[in-house]
């Protein structure tokens, strides 16, 4: 565990040192398209949470889909 954290700190330091001078390759004034309504990842949080619940209640797989958790209501 200690070794892993040490490695992480070392890697993080290297990343930090190497990237501290990186200029964002997409400038703030070039982000109008990314800010568009059609590009939003979680435009409707209530609806997204409900659809995750619909899928996870009926499928064996779970996780990595932004689910809100809780019971399944499917006993």
């Amino acid at each position, binding site marked *: *565990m200690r070794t*892993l*954290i040490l*490695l*992480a*700190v070392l*890697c*993080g*330091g290297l*990343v*930090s040192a190497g*990237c*501290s001078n*990186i*200029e*964002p*390759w*997409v400038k*703030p004034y*070039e*982000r109008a*398209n*990314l800010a*568009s*309504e*059609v*590009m939003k*990842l979680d435009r*409707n*949080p*209530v*609806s997204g*949470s*409900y*659809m995750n619940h*619909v*899928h996870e209640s*009926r*499928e*064996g*797989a*779970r*996780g*990595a*889909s*932004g689910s*809100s*958790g*809780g*019971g399944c*209501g*499917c*006993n």
Partner: protein
Amino acid sequence: MARQRFSRLIAVALAALVLLPAAHAQVLPDDRFDLLYHSYEGDQITITGPSLLARKKIGQKVSVSANYYVDEISSASIDVRSYASPYTEKRNEFSLSADYLVGETILTAGYTNSDEQDFEAQTAFFGVAQEVFGGLTTVNLSYARGWDEIGQVTDPEFFREADRRLYRLGLSQVITKNLLLTFDFEGITDEGFLNNSYRQVRFLDANDARGYRFQPELYPETRTSSAFSLGGRYFIGAGPSAIYANARTYSDTWGIAAWNAELGYTYSLRSKWLFDLSARHYSQTAADFYSDLYPFENAQNFLGRDKEISTFTNTGIKLDITYDFSVDIFRFLDRGTVNLSYNYIMFEYDDFRNIPAGGDPGEEPLFEFNADVIQVYLSFWF
């Protein structure tokens, strides 16, 4: 062992996150209110109810949100039709969470309670989100802990518990001024009573007139799973519009391996209408201990005949329509939308048989059904 592995992963990611160059101001989520009505119909199950979300900033540093969600369930599902009686029940879920802006980082903590007549689930969660590299990368880390209490309507003395831990790592990355990529990992470990307290498995019995009988299912008391997903969204000028896709792989210690993929298109018309059309396909293999029909009673240490752990696929198509209207009636409201969503899903099972359809044991037709999922909701920003 799995928990230690996930803990190490989170520790490493946290250490790296702390050292990444943060150079972009984080923004708390918008204040909003959503009122949704949902309806699911499939396999002779109807589930309806409301969901209400309210989110509000308190000062410049804190945003709080509350969500109330209800499932009104009326079920005569394939399991019920095979060996039980139709039932109705209600599930209430209440969530509270708070976001706290600290420098360039947003800390989130929350609690969810889900309550049914025979099942209570509590989940506490904590997360960290930070934008780095001039706002081109967003890193999310979160941990959740869940406690389930399982009962039985038919036996007031029945009481079991289960314990869950969830570890999540998410990344979103701006690639170009038109392309955004996302990556997510989630590891989950469960321990305790993990099967349904009512569900039965069936086994061959030549002495029974049907040729088979039922006994309660029995699952392993631990389960560990890993899921990875990769997604992308690309801006197209016309409309404007965007295409998006995502894929996920999944595996767990019960032997279930799954994948799913989704492809969608979002189109904005005159800044008033938004149309979103998407298709999703899901496929999984069965758990190692699953069987539709065991050769005899207590044939294995673990027994399961839940169609959710069988081999199956589902394919869905979904259409969302949003109309954006200006809100002139109340001055404190900035904007409102009315939304309609329809999703049609087809389920096809490869080793789960339709017992009520009849036939020799193990020779009944394979089960399949279609589901309609409808959502109607209003959203307001203030």
